């Protein structure tokens, strides 16, 4: 009996539905006090006065800290360009300037508000184009002194925080002989991850070490960032994970953790808890970056793409986080999944006086695919080609070689995706069903499974259950509470409810690369499978003695070790575990796993920090929309997804990731405006104006899983969760433009733009 592919209830389900689950924001420590941050009210300026004395005199206050109390250190995931507190210059609204610890949260907030702060405003660098001009003020006048967190430096200069450029031969020649040159410019706004649990952290300074309790996607990254900010070695920091109320990438880098840690030290070691208000959270969240994407294709009369230029300018905000590493993704998505000639790619990441941007599910890919797929529709329209036929004609096949030299051995899966959706919703029928203000859109994508390292220890308990120790985090996806649990249960032949997985703790578990890039089920599942394999071998060795059989003749299944072909000859694994205690010692196994980057051509581009896409997956989406011609609002009527998943480990988990990602993509496409004013401050500042899609806004996603088991993945699994967020903006935009017969090239699509286009 197998549990792989079966509907298994998630291990943390009962605790979550009953209110018993203790999230990061619920965590308390004995003797805990509360913290609050004083944040910059302006996006650019010089601090002319900072007087903490009034705050120190407030009731209940234990400590007030500023840059003067923090180590003189720079920190950063990729580039060390951040200080813990602004000292002389503020670079974005919401930047921490001081922190307070007090008996109660109300006292802490009151004291933070009592700090005297004068900031002399400076012009804010906001516009991406202007930021790159020679006469623009520099967001970081000292940019040259910054050093990478690891490895060699990378191309960057002035307000350009990172740059990836590919300039293959033949581009200009192809443009010179093109039948037509099609040019587009696309603008994408930021998107707030808007997990429902705001960020929080509890810091404790005790015994010369810092412990941080936090609900985080990547505890080891927090450890490293806290260590950088506080100028201690990583092992001086312990990060303890808790149940997490969503993250979607925004909880991959440190947020409140270093402040909580340093406040505890300043407060004599008392545990200090910090919690963001929703507005603090929104204003300082590393949201998905805004970007301008320009794309230009030289096409032949039959639609063949002879060459292309793609330029993307992405908003880094005031410091870098993960972003420099991701600039190269433009190279991997520049042609989408369609054949074309040589392609010149220029990707620049630009500093501005705005909140730092960062990872959000489907990093960079959402607006890149929006640009590429809108552009494909534009070419098809210019050449009066059917949009689906045109895509199929240029679609990648098996063995496709990409711009970086990476070869996609299984890209033929894409055609299966188109076929699967054709069976569900024939294109001709959708076309026939069109009427005024109804439209359809189609698009396709490929994506990676994050290759980051992971580890697990599996211990067989004396009652026949298993414990899994890992720093992997279940950010809600079920990757741990369903996926890893199922994989270990399957291998040990025990029910999933008999597998217990720890929450992350960097003192207890080995390194884990965090819940990002759809990696956990595959990478940690594989590490746990390796560990479970070791346990199985040990079980067989002990059971061989009990059953008087050769280990190779044994199998582990249904809670027992039994002789193959003689299932009546068996011994419960609980007895094996008990026996082992005093013969070979406790039964446990360890597993580690990391996916190598696929081969690539290192000279294809400069600034190639993210060189290739490991464990590719393939995606085809279709949307059908209806536009209200009176209001310009858009309703998504149907949404279809065909997706390569390797192998479905959990049907509910897989569908939940697809459905949830599509909902975030619909929000990105239609509802979620996150605008920045000329002063560098966000205009939307609460969940009233930052509109998240509701149950009434989201259709039921029609989903086809394409299964091509990955020989390196556990039971064939590949990443699932990120890919489905890549295409909703693209296909919805294509559908809306189809519905109204006019191009719209901004994300999100607002009723204002739609109505103006209709009435133009």
């Amino acid at each position, binding site marked *: 009996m197998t549990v792989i592919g079966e509907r298994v209830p998630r291990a943390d389900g009962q605790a979550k539905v009953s209110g018993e689950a203790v999230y990061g924001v619920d965590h308390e420590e004995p003797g805990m006090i509360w913290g609050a941050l004083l944040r910059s009210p302006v996006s650019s300026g010089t601090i002319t006065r900072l007087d903490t004395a009034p705050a120190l005199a407030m009731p209940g206050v234990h400590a007030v800290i500023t840059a003067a109390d923090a180590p003189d250190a720079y920190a950063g995931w990729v580039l060390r360009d951040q200080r813990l507190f602004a000292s002389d210059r503020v670079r974005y609204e919401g930047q921490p300037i001081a922190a307070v610890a007090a008996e109660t949260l109300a006292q802490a907030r009151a004291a933070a508000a009592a700090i005297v702060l004068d900031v002399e405003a400076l012009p804010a660098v906001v516009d991406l184009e202007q930021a790159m001009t020679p006469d623009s003020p520099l967001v970081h006048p000292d940019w040259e002194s910054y050093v990478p967190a690891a490895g060699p430096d990378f191309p960057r200069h002035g307000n350009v925080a990172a740059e990836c450029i590919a300039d293959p031969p033949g581009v200009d020649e192809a443009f010179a002989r093109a039948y037509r040159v099609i040019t587009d410019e696309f603008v994408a706004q930021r998107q707030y991850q808007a997990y429902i649990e705001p960020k929080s952290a509890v810091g404790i300074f005790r015994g010369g070490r810092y412990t941080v309790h936090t609900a985080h996607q990547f505890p080891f990254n927090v450890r490293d960032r806290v260590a950088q900010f506080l100028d201690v070695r990583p092992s001086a920091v312990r990060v303890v994970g808790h149940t997490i109320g969503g993250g979607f990438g925004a909880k991959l880098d440190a947020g409140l953790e270093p402040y909580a840690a340093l406040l505890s030290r300043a407060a004599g070691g008392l545990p200090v808890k910090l919690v963001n208000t929703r507005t603090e959270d929104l204003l300082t969240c590393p949201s998905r970056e805004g970007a301008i994407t320009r794309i230009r294709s030289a096409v032949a009369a039959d639609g063949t793409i002879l060459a292309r230029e793609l330029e993307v300018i992405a908003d880094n905000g005031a410091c870098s986080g993960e972003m420099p590493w991701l600039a190269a993704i433009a190279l991997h998505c520049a042609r989408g999944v369609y054949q074309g000639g040589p392609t010149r790619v220029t990707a620049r990441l630009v500093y501005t006086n705005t909140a730092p941007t960062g990872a959000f599910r489907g990093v960079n890919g959402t607006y890149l695919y929006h640009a590429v797929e809108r552009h494909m529709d534009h070419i098809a329209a210019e050449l009066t080609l059917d949009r689906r036929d045109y895509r199929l004609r240029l679609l990648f096949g098996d063995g496709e070689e990409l711009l970086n030299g990476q070869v996609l051995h299984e890209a033929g899966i894409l055609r299966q995706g188109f076929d699967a959706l054709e069976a569900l919703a024939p294109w001709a029928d959708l076309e026939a069903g069109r009427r005024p203000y109804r439209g359809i859109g189609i698009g396709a994508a490929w994506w990676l499974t994050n290759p980051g390292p992971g580890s697990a220890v599996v211990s067989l308990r004396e009652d026949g259950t298993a414990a899994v120790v890992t720093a992997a985090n279940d950010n809600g996806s079920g990757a741990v509470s369903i996926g890893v649990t199922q994989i270990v249960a399957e291998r040990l032949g025990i029910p999933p409810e008999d597998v217990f997985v720890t929450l992350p703790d960097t003192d207890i578990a080995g390194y884990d690369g965090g819940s990002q890039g759809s990696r956990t089920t595959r990478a940690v599942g594989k590490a746990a499978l390796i560990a479970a394999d070791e346990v199985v071998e040990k079980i067989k060795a002990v059971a061989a003695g009990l059953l008087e059989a050769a280990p190779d003749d044994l199998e582990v299944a249904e809670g027992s070790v039994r002789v193959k072909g003689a299932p009546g000859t068996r011994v419960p694994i609980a007895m094996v575990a008990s026996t082992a205690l005093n013969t070979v010692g406790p039964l446990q196994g360890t597993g580690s796993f990391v996916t190598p980057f696929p081969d690539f051509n290192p000279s294809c581009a400069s600034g190639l920090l993210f060189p290739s896409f490991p464990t590719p997956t393939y995606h085809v989406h279709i949307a059908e929309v209806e536009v209200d011609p009176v209001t310009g609002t858009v309703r998504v009527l149907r949404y279809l997804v065909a997706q390569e998943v390797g192998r479905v480990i959990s049907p509910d988990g897989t569908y939940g990731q697809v459905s949830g990602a599509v909902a975030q993509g619909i929000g990105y496409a239609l509802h979620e405006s996150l605008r920045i004013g000329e002063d560098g401050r966000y205009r939307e500042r609460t969940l009233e104006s930052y*509109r998240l899609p509701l149950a009434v806004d989201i259709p039921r996603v029609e989903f086809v899983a394409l299964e091509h088991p990955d020989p390196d993945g556990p039971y064939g699994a590949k990443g699932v969760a990120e890919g489905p967020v890549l295409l909703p903006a693209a296909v919805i935009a294509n559908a809306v433009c189809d519905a109204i017969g006019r191009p719209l090239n901004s994300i999100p699509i607002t009723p204002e733009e739609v109505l103006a286009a209709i009435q133009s």
Partner: protein
Amino acid sequence: MELHAVDSLDAALDVLATRGERCQVLAGGTDVMVQLARGEITPAALLHVERIEALRGIEVDGPITLGALVTHRELAKGVLGDGFRSVAESAATVGGRQTQVVGTIGGNVCNASPAADTVPALLVHDATVTLRSSAGSRTVPLSAFLVGRRATTRAPDELLTAIGMPATGEGSGDVYLKVGRRSAMEVAIVGLAMRLRFDEAGTVTEARVALASVGPRPQRATGAEAALVGGPLEPDRVDAAASAVLDGVEPVDDLRATAAYRRRVVPGLLRRAAGICAQRAGR
């Protein structure tokens, strides 16, 4: 801050008579508690009136009388009948279920938001509001009660106790249309209520149009009303009304939308509303 919890109208009026200036009236609290948390209001005391049973009544025989504490949820369920569908439709768009079960019609009116959903619907029904104080009582047209953004003529010692609307006659139809980015949970970008009455020949004999979220307070569009009355609801008549609907109105630019968008969307809404009213009137 103090909380005065009362369960009778007299007790409430007593508090207001002596401490009205520094009191914020609290019913369902769905606006007040947000404003308190944001620091937008800083009253010295809250007067919790939501337990005054006498303010919960709904009279629907003949003219309508709504107690101030009638909730959005009650109205959304259609308790006022087919003649007041704009009221039900507007109440159904105020927040989610959680807001509607405790949020009250009196609160929505007194909050005097430019975007108040129920107000345009009440305006097209020629609603009046009744205010009581320990000194007496007065009834005024809603259109006169609302004087600006978050501003009413309520005196500090007064409590809004009831909202009245005349019965709708034969041949009437009404509707509330709201524009937002989502299908629910929106502060209106524009709200438009309309009520039309037709005679048996199909002539529009009475027209009311009111808008929310285009100016500092919800208000009637009298130019459009005049254009609609006096003949059958033919395209020319509707076009004339659509052209006149923003007469004298200077739509606002705000976080939710530009003035330009509001100008674009309102005429189309009016056309749509006219069609729905005619259909609902059976004309």
